[in-house]
């Protein structure tokens, strides 16, 4: 169980507090609480503050959710409004 706790390391890239960014963050938090309670960490990166970080994770769309751990890296772009797609994208639910 201890392993599973740190299983999901998520990073959400946003650019300022836009409507899409805000809804993406709240959606993400909701799904995580529902499905990955206690097994995840979310890092929010505002590219307006740290634009140099965009290149590292190959960010071009905003908002982008990156699953750093577990590998392979997965990206989900958009405001994460479709729960089903997000869960599949994060491999929480099988395809």
């Amino acid at each position, binding site marked *: 169980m201890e392993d599973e706790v740190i299983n999901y390391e998520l990073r959400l*890239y946003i*650019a300022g507090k*836009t409507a*899409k960014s805000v*809804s*993406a963050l709240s959606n993400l938090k909701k799904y995580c609480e529902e499905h990955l309670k206690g097994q995840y960490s979310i890092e929010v990166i505002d*590219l*307006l503050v740290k*634009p*140099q970080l*965009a*290149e590292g994770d*190959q*960010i*071009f*769309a*905003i*908002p*982008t959710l990156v699953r750093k751990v577990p590998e*392979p*890296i*997965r*990206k*989900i*772009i*958009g*405001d*994460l*409004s*479709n729960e089903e*797609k*997000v869960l*599949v*994208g994060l491999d929480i639910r099988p395809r």
Partner: protein
Amino acid sequence: MTKSHKKQQPTNIKSLPKTPTGITGLDEITSGGIPQGRPTLICGEAGCGKTLMSLEFIVRGAMIFNEPGVFMAFEEKTDELAMNVASLGFNLYELQEQKKVKLDHVHIDRSEIEETGEYDLEGLFIRLGHAIDSIGAKRVVLDTLENLFSGLSNEIVLRAELRRLFTFLKNKGVTAIITGEKGDGGSLTRQGLEEYVSDCVILLDHRVINQISTRRLRVVKYRGSQHGTNEYPFLIDEDGISVLPVTSLGLEKAVSSKRISSGIPALDYMLGGQGFFEGSSILVSGTAGTGKTSISAYFAAETCKQKKRCLYFAFEESPNQIIRNMRSINIDLQPYVNSGLLRFHASRPTLYGLEMHLVAIYKLIQQFKPDTIILDPITNLITVGSVSEVKSMLVRLIDFLQNEQITVMFTALSLNTVVNEQTDEGVSSLVDTWMLVRDIEHNGERNRGLYIMKSRGMKHSNQVREFIITDKGLDLVDVYLGPEGVLTGSAREAQQLKERTGVALRDFAVSRKDKEITRKRTMLESKISNLQAEFESVEEELNRIYYEDELKQQIMDKNRDEITKMRRGVKEDIPVKKKSNGRRSNKL
């Protein structure tokens, strides 16, 4: 502000600020470069050189114009890009370290991406903005933006974002190049990028005709500026891209009245005694084996002798072959090659397309700066293009050479086929001097006759000369024009021999007659002396008789006096008689 400008320099309002690309030739076509602070679209099929052209724009900008640039690649990784252009002598890593260039690879992989809900490309904007700001970039390239379409499915969002991207670029004040693949049908790009980029569109093309590929470039659109509208060939080689600004629009060229020797004194004599004009074009045509290459080698040697530079394009033989062969007619080109006055450039015509040849020639000329060039033979170019193409290429070449004041000698092979006669004709109207070397077949042997078909602006011989090649070199001799017509070669020599024999015979006959006359004279003279002798003897005889008579008379007179004296016995009379005696003897 515009008003004050208008008053000062009315033309300034119209002129669009331009950013020079630094790509050879492209700036000439676009009269200064691509529009400054605006996006330009470069489109074309795969493998036509879009990426290279845009990358060269960035590198040249950083290296020559000191304008840092951002290259955002959607296709290739930065390492691959750096490796690809390393062969052109561009060190992207070094430029990146110097903060002159920034490469950014945007990796888009559909399999890694899930799309849920609304999004925008703000991330890309931020990346680009950050890259531009970090090095103070003035130039931006987005290499195949269309890859976004393959990576993302929401086209509506993409299109809206593209429009925003171009506005963003304009606001940033950067000169941007966007590349796009040519689409099916009439559209320039697959995703219709041209509708977003309306200022300048350059189309690249890579065509294969008769198995020979030629790259071409065309400025499809250039808002607010005049530009060349033709298709211009371009070349990718070790120095990057060179575009050939093909034609000078006018015929306003400086002309020289200086003359340049052909290297064959007899030929110079035929050309008004001084040879060709400097900067003129000369065509030597003839059938195979008539010595066209020899004439051009003489010309090359003569150029080098005067410490001028000559560039020899050989399309048939290798340089060493030419040097060896020319030794046999007493020209050694090797020293000139060693001293750098003569340079050979040998290539098979089929190596690349006609336009490429032109670009290659153009580049070499710019590099070597020769005074004369030789193309031997242009006929072989026919194998890679049609007659009209060859002609248009040569027009452009001659145009260019005349601008540069370079004398050019072409050799052309003329067979008796229709195509080649056309070539001859097509080219011959362009050149200033046209010499024709022709086989004269007569009496079971083949000889060469040289004509000057035309030579603009000088008095030239209308005579056919026999063109002879010996191990001492080339020479022209007058053909024999006798009662039996035009004779050349051994027939000419035979005729000359015959004439020499005739002269000898005549000489002999004359001398015989001379001798006869002399003999006759001596005979007559001896006769005359005989008669003279006879005359003298007769005269003597006469004298003798006369003398005898006189003597007789004297004696008779004396006797009579004696008798008279004796009869009279007077002695005083004697002196008187003596006197008369003396008179008579005097008379005798």
